[in-house]
């Protein structure tokens, strides 16, 4: 038996990285102190294990900071029917997931930064093959020069790869969204892979108390995977050559599947609440936006800092709201139009940079709001390369935004302040 494959022996589950006194986790005790990576690894493992009565689970695993603990956790998990293959590159990690998914297994992996960049060719392939693979993208700055801290540029670079993209703000959001992602990706109306992003270190390596799912709950929530186009012994060539008009049809089908995601996601959230008793955010979360004159939009852990700042300003009577950007692909344009409502000023916090353009969320939101005349939309590049985005910085941004009469090119917050 391969090394490292026999650690799991049913409850209690040993989580790495915990202090000895807290190392033993009883599965039925749902709330536990865990790191983001261990919570993600644990959730992926339970999702894979939930497919044991169907065609099992497969994972191609390769280390990269700050993602490594996820694949370490998966290698230590003893699947009833599953295999975690420790491969030689991210490119092959996704290759293993593709082959395993085509043979009918529930497939998942995790990566970060340059690992995602190296994997990219097969990331596109997984989308174009219509395989419901789930990948955790632990956000880390792309290099060189080398920087291991969080920045959403690595996962956003994969935005055109026919994958759903979710951005999560916390450990709990991460766990819940992984389960939503499997449910939505595997839905016959969708059949596209999902990337679930978490902030490197801020989430991946910090501990907090999380409601972890139980296997029995995950078994109920994720039905056995039955991929309609899996290899079934027939003389069918998957992914062979295709002429232009069939390529157009293929892309249109992917777009149609993307268009069905909001509805499928809404249903997945309803079912999630029935099984787990919680209601995770869907495409986005609009908070205090009903009467807001100024709205800030952010993703990942920046949302939590922003929430504090908005609450404080609300207490002082300022009409300020926030939107947590969660689903990036498909981009829920109409949800933004509705959420922004009659606000006069909108600021976008982009912890990413598309050279020659600006923040990537900003351009997407600008496209969404093109029918709103008179709206002031300003982009702020903030926290690039993992710089701290403190309440003080957000206050400065809000002051700048409120004082504006016209928008400018994206503002480089750290450099200018």
């Amino acid at each position: 038996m391969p090394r490292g494959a026999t650690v799991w022996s049913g409850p209690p589950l040993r989580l790495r990285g915990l202090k000895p006194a807290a190392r033993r986790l009883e599965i039925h005790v749902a709330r536990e102190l865990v790191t983001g990576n261990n919570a993600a690894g644990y959730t992926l493992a339970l999702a894979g294990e939930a497919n044991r009565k169907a065609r099992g689970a497969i994972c191609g695993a390769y280390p990269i900071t700050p993602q490594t603990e996820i694949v370490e956790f998966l290698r230590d998990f003893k699947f009833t029917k599953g295999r975690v293959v420790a491969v030689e590159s991210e490119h092959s990690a996704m290759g293993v997931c593709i082959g395993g998914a085509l043979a009918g297994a529930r497939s998942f992996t995790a990566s970060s930064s340059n690992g995602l960049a190296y994997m990219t060719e097969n990331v596109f392939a997984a989308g174009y093959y219509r395989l419901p693979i789930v990948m955790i993208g632990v956000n880390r700055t792309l290099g060189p020069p080398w920087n291991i801290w969080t920045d959403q540029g690595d996962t956003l670079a994969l935005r055109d790869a026919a994958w759903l993209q979710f951005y999560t703000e916390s450990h709990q959001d991460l766990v819940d969204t992984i389960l939503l992602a499997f449910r939505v990706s595997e839905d016959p109306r969708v059949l596209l892979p999902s990337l679930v992003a978490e902030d490197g270190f801020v989430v991946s390596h910090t501990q907090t108390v999380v409601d972890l799912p139980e296997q029995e709950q995950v078994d109920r929530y994720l039905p056995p995977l039955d991929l309609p186009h899996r290899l079934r012994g027939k003389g069918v060539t998957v992914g062979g050559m295709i002429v232009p008009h069939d390529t157009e049809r293929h892309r249109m089908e992917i777009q149609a599947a993307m268009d069905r995601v909001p509805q499928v996601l809404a249903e997945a959230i309803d079912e999630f609440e029935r099984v787990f008793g919680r209601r995770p955010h869907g495409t986005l979360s609009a908070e205090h936006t009903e009467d807001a004159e100024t709205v800030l939009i952010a993703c990942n852990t920046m949302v939590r800092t922003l929430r504090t700042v908005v609450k404080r300003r609300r207490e002082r009577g300022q009409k300020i709201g926030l939107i947590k950007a969660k689903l990036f692909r498909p981009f829920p344009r109409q949800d933004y139009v509705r959420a922004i409502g009659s606000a006069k000023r909108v600021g976008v916090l982009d912890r990413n940079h598309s050279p020659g353009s600006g923040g990537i969320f900003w351009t997407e939101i600008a496209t969404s709001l093109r029918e709103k005349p008179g709206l002031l939309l300003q982009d702020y590049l903030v926290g690039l390369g993992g710089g701290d985005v403190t309440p003080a910085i957000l206050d400065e941004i809000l002051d700048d935004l409120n004082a504006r009469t016209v928008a400018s090119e994206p503002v480089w917050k750290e450099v200018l302040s």
Partner: protein
Amino acid sequence: MTTAPVTPHEARCDGILRPGNTNCAGCGMSIGLQWLEQALEGERPTLCIPACCGIVTAGTFPTSAYGVPTVACTFASAASVATGVSSVYAMNGEDELTVCWTGDGGTYDIGVATWSAAAERNEDLLYICYDNEIYGNTGGQRSSATPQGVKTSTTSEGKLEPKKDIMALVAAHRVPYAATLSVAHRDDFMRKVKTARQMKGFRFLLMLSPCPTGWKSEPGDSVDLIDTAVRCGLFPLYEVYGGRRYRINARPDGTPLEDYIKRQRRYRSATLDLDALQAQIRENWAHLETMARAFPAPEL
């Protein structure tokens, strides 16, 4: 006057290679795939084929010239995708054969890290490289499988470097089985495929695959060219068990190297040095004979 529709025989529709494929006349793959099918005696493998002529063979969607489940993989991914496929077959108790069918570009060049890792993990795969010593479907560029002195569209004066010894590289992984295949030696070909099929783990077969388009040779000469390559010693037929134990299947019979070279216009280059090539062949054989004497595989 009407023409009756052509209906291929049912049995051919379920084989590995269906009639009506797009292979060039004289392509080694056409023989190799049919002999593979015959050696597997009706078993229907899953093929993982990266970017190469072998995936052009299939033709365009929704038709396919492959009668068995086939995955068109990205260029470097045959062995990783096949790892996923074979792992899931195995965990579901299915004794299905997974075959990587790859060209020399995908094996000698871009896919080395992938198959090397699969070999090191001893994945249960039959990896077959049909080696036409060129990037064929891109119009004939050098690969590290291209022999010294051969003209390609990226070595217009002839290639300076000798061909990579991929068998030595594979053997260094100590995989259960590695062997060379000739499309001119049917019994030997059949036995080797059957031997590989009976084994578990990573098995590697290297087939020298004539390519009239790239080799600038006559399609009707293809089989005879490979026969000549074996007879003159350029392409030794041998097996390596466990990466250590050697068995030689055919020895040079004195056929001159020129008989192989002169029928391929790709060798008409300024850098072709027949004496040097002959010396390399002698050295290769000295090494092979030494290994087969010192570390012999059990007699057949």
